[in-house]
Structure formats: C-alpha cells, structure tokens
C-alpha cells in the first residue's frame, strides 16, 4: 500500500521519468552469469595461494606487543632529548645556510687562486721580455758597441777619405800612447 502511494507520488512528481520503462537496457555477454561463479571461485583460490606463499612469520604475540614497544621507544627518546633550545626553524634552515656558506667560500678562493697564478705568470713573462728588450736596446745603441761592429778596414778607409783639420784634436785624444808613436801619426797624415 505504501509502495503504491510512493509510486503515485512519483508519477505526479516526475511524469517523464515514470513514463520511461524500467526494463533493464544493459546487457551482458552470452552465458556471463553461468561462468561468473566459476571465475570468482578461481580468483578466490588464487588469492588463497598467494596468501599461503607468504612464508614470513613473526614471533608469537608480536603485533599485540608492537604498539607498546613503539610507545616505549618514543618515551625513551623523549627522555633522552636535552633541555637546550634552538631558535625557531633553526634545523629547518640549517642545511640551506651551511650550503650557502660553503658555496660562497669555495667560489671566492677558487677565483683568487686562479687569477693570482695567471697574473703572476703574465707579469713574469712581461717583465723578462721588457728587461731583455731594454738591455738589448741599451747595449746596441752605445757608440762603442756600434763602432765595434764596423770592420777596422772600413773605419780606416772612412778616416782616410773624410778626415780634415777639425778632427785632429779628437784623434789626438783617442791616440793610445802604447800603440802609436808620433812618427806613425806623421807618416799616416802625410800619406
């Protein structure tokens, strides 16, 4: 009776819905339910076999006491904990802080070391080269050096051709007494 009332109420409330047949529109493959019992029983047997293959065992009453054991360990750890305090988030931030400081330090030292060696090497090469060039230039620009490079015959030839009276005082100054005598000088001049 109650069900009929409910149906009447439903028809009033939802005429479009109640107009649709309640017939099952879904189907299953042929013979599906005939095999379903067998399929599920097979699955159950597989489950049992899988469960049996778990040969690991625990001591008797292990899981009954596990809860207590864990709680005891936690209490023990709490007792061990010291009374010193650290700033808030100290340990949370410590890893980042240490990493930052390590990275910064190593970067600085590497840069300095590499630059010093490079600059020192460059400076040495530059200094050596400059010094060598300087000494070489200085040495090669002296009158003595340049005269020493001119063969004696050429000097003699030059003096023979270009000497005049104004050169005489300088020639006199340059006369090495040990090597030349007045006679030699006179002889050469007259020639």
């Amino acid at each position, binding site marked *: 009776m109650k069900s009929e009332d409910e149906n009447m109420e439903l028809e009033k409330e939802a005429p479009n819905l109640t107009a649709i047949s309640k017939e099952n529109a879904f189907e299953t*493959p042929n013979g599906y339910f005939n095999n379903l*019992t067998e399929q599920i029983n097979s699955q159950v047997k597989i489950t049992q076999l899988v469960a049996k293959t778990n040969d690991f065992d625990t001591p008797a009453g292990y899981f009954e006491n596990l809860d207590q054991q864990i709680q005891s360990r936690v209490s023990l750890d709490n007792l061990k904990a010291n009374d010193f305090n650290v700033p808030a988030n100290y340990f949370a931030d410590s890893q980042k802080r240490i990493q930052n400081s390590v990275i910064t330090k190593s970067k600085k030292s590497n840069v300095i070391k590499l630059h010093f060696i490079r600059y020192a090497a460059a400076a040495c090469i530059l200094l050596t080269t400059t010094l060598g060039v300087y000494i070489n230039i200085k040495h090669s620009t002296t009158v003595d050096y340049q005269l020493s490079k001119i063969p004696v015959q050429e000097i003699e030839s030059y003096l023979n051709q270009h000497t005049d009276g104004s050169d005489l005082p300088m020639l006199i100054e340059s006369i090495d007494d040990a090597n030349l005598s007045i006679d030699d000088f006179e002889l050469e001049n007259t020639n």
Partner: protein
Amino acid sequence: MVIEDSVILQKFEDEKTRHEAFTLLLNKYQQKVYWHIRRMVLNHDDADDLVQDVFIKVWKNLANFRQDAQLYTWLYRIASNECITFLNKKKAKNNVSLDELPEQLTDNLNEENYFSGDAIQKKLQQALLTLPEKQKLVFNMKYYDDMKFQEISDVLGTSVGALKASYHLAVKKIEHYLLSTD
C-alpha cells in the same frame, strides 16, 4: 529454492563447507551485486572487474561479518564503496573534470558495450550521470531495486530522513533534465 543467509553463514564457519557456502552466496547474490555496480559504472568490463573484486573482499571478510546486519546490505555496502573508489580513480587517471566524465561514460552506451536501450533510456542514463555519485546510488537502490529507505540507510550509513531528501532531489533533477533536453 532460496537458501537462507543464516545457512550460508553457518556453512561458511566450517572449514570443510566454506567453499560450498561461498558458491551458494555467489549464486544468490552475484547478479544483484553485478547490476548494482553496472548501473553505476555503465561499462560491462569495468563492472566485471569490480564484481570480482567485491566478492574476493567478501571471501576475505565474511568470517568477521557481524550477523546483526543483513548479508545483502553488507554486500551492497562493499559494492557501493568499490564503485565510488573506482569512479574517483577513473576521474584522476583520465584527468577529466566532473563535467566531462558523464560525456565519456555515455559515449560507451551502445550495442558494442552491451547497451540495448532506446534514445529515451540513454537520455535517462545521461540524466543519472548528472547526479553526485552517492545520490545516484540512493536513486538506483530506491528506483530500480525497490529497497526501503531503512535498508539503503544500512548500506550507506546515512539517516533515513537525509536519504528521502536526497532521493526526491534526484527525482526532480532527472525530471528537469528530461524536460530541458526534449
């Protein structure tokens, strides 16, 4: 011949007759459970997988079943939970929104997927897909399985008053959908 639940449970307690009891249980309830699941997931293959999962859970837990509840409401509860878990996983796996899932599910409503309904029955299924999953469970159990609100309450653990409100709201939504899309 209908076998009483008490007989099945009694046989299940005995190790020697456990498999026999389970076969009796399957024969009695497998179709009901299958159709309950099928109406929720629509697709036969999904329903097939789920019905097997449900009965494996039943096998594992039947020894702990408290006989203060009815066996079939307990079975329906397991099946309902499996359906909701499955649909949530499907949404997450396919990365579809709540709005898109009904479209995907109704696309499968054709003869290849064992659906023989006409256009209006397909439209009813589309209307049902607009309901939240729990509300759809309530509607299916009341409308198709003719279950009492108290029995549905035993399955879903929701008060009878809330279930009545949910059912009437579902009926209104479906009626509105059928009218608006005509």
